[in-house]
């Protein structure tokens, strides 16, 4: 790692620490009640103290999100490839997809609950519904914008359509795909928590709902912190995978093979 990168990371860490320090100092100096905005130190204390109780909820949110996200990736890739490789599919299916993605997902959760009852299924489905669209758009764009010259290279070798897709289309689309994964992962969390808040008896969303009705504001904030942390963790995970697989798209000197 270069000293430049090291310095950049140090600054990022410093910014986070400074943010929490400011928050703490502002709360203390303005004497804000912890019923309105608890101090970060309070939130962290609550988080650690209640961890045995919180842990099953964290796991619940995590696995429902991951399943929803996984299904979203599959659905997104399949639809994206279909739309990206076929001009007709692109023109006919896009309006429907955009219409679907424009529906606020809060409005869909009650329908899922009506169909499947309160529990993990609506959470999974909401996560899926939230996260597949960016994947579709990115894959379709990546495939549709593949340089015809690159495809010609394969076609002149007598490659089948599948060969072209596997050897040119998909690798060419990979940077778009990974960019969309990072967005989709955070969207999936939003979806899960949304469903959990509306109708569930488990999960971080549910914890935050019941905590806020008990005026246990530090616990509500603890839930928020946990969600933020999970989101960042997933983002980092996908960034690492991205660097591993599509390093060629980042032509920085330190990315050289």
């Amino acid at each position, binding site marked *: 790692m270069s000293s430049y990168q090291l310095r950049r990371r140090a600054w990022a860490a410093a910014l986070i620490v400074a943010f929490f320090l400011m928050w703490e100092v502002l709360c203390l100096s303005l004497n804000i009640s912890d019923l309105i905005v608890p101090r970060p130190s309070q939130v962290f204390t609550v988080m650690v103290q209640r961890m045995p109780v919180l842990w099953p909820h964290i796991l619940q949110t995590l696995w429902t999100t991951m399943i929803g996200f996984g299904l979203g990736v599959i659905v997104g890739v399949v639809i994206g490839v279909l739309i990206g490789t076929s001009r007709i599919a692109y023109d006919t299916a896009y309006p429907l997809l955009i219409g679907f993605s424009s529906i606020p997902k809060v409005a869909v959760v009650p329908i899922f609950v009506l169909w499947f009852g309160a529990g993990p299924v609506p959470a999974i489905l909401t996560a899926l519904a939230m996260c597949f669209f960016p994947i579709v758009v990115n894959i379709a764009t990546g495939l549709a914008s593949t340089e015809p010259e690159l495809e010609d*290279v394969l076609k002149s*070798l*007598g490659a089948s359509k599948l*060969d072209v897709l596997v*050897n040119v289309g998909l690798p*060419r689309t990979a940077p778009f795909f990974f960019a969309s994964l990072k967005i989709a992962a955070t969207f999936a969390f939003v979806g899960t928590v949304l469903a959990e808040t509306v109708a569930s008896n488990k999960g971080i969303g549910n914890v935050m709902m019941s905590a806020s009705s008990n005026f246990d504001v530090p616990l509500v904030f603890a839930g928020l912190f946990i969600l933020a942390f999970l989101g960042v963790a997933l983002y980092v995970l996908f960034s690492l995978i991205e660097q591993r697989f599509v390093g060629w798209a980042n032509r920085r000197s330190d990315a050289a093979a």
Partner: protein
Amino acid sequence: MDATPRHQFDAVKLWEASVSFGPPGRAVPALQETSLSIKQGEFLALVGPSGCGKSTILRLAAGLLEPTTGDVLVGGREVKAKALRLGMAFQNPTLLPWLTIEKNVMLPLRIVRPFRHDFRRKKRGEYRDRVHAMLDDVGLSKFANHYPWQLSGGMLQRANLCRALIHEPQLLLLDEPFGALDQFTREELWNAMQTLWMKRKPTVILVTHDLKEAGFLATRICVMSARPGRIIDNSPVDFARPRTIAMTFEPDFVALNQALREKIIAARSQTAEHAA
């Protein structure tokens, strides 16, 4: 397949092939009723003013384009049958940016029959050695594990030629592959190309703007008219092989060059009259 004696097929045969682009009614003709036969083992150079449909002929032979009217046969059969193993090098290097040079050059072995059948088994052994030997020939062995963006234009073009040749094509289609190179690299690659052609005798169609290049490499030169292209002249080139760069300064060679030049200039001025 059967016991009857095989016919002597032309490697590539165009029969009154026309190509036009765009919707019917407003179609723009690119190639006009062109007939052309290229024998097995011939090295044909196509020259002519820019935009005259030279590349269109290559794309027809490669099966990247279908004639609007007329027929195109490769190896005596329709293009789709892929009767001849095909290698193609474009004007732009078109290397895949996510693959190293080695893997780029290896690409045809992964795609083309019969090599793809053995690819999984041989990619680390025999095929890799073959790629390295080829890269060595063009002075790129040190760059096998580099990515295309780390190489200069001339190096990319050499890798591009390696990719077109690695699967020992029977028909080689070259679309100005030496165009963007400096004089000396170009002459070096002409020599390499000549050696290779003399060794394996593939059928070659070379599209070029460079008359010296055409005279140096080709066994026959076709001059095309301005758009929509037709073949207006067909001259064999009989200089002894191996030809040398020094030979390109001899009177016979210069005379050929000059004759071709005049034909192309005449073809160009026709367009000017059309336009006027």
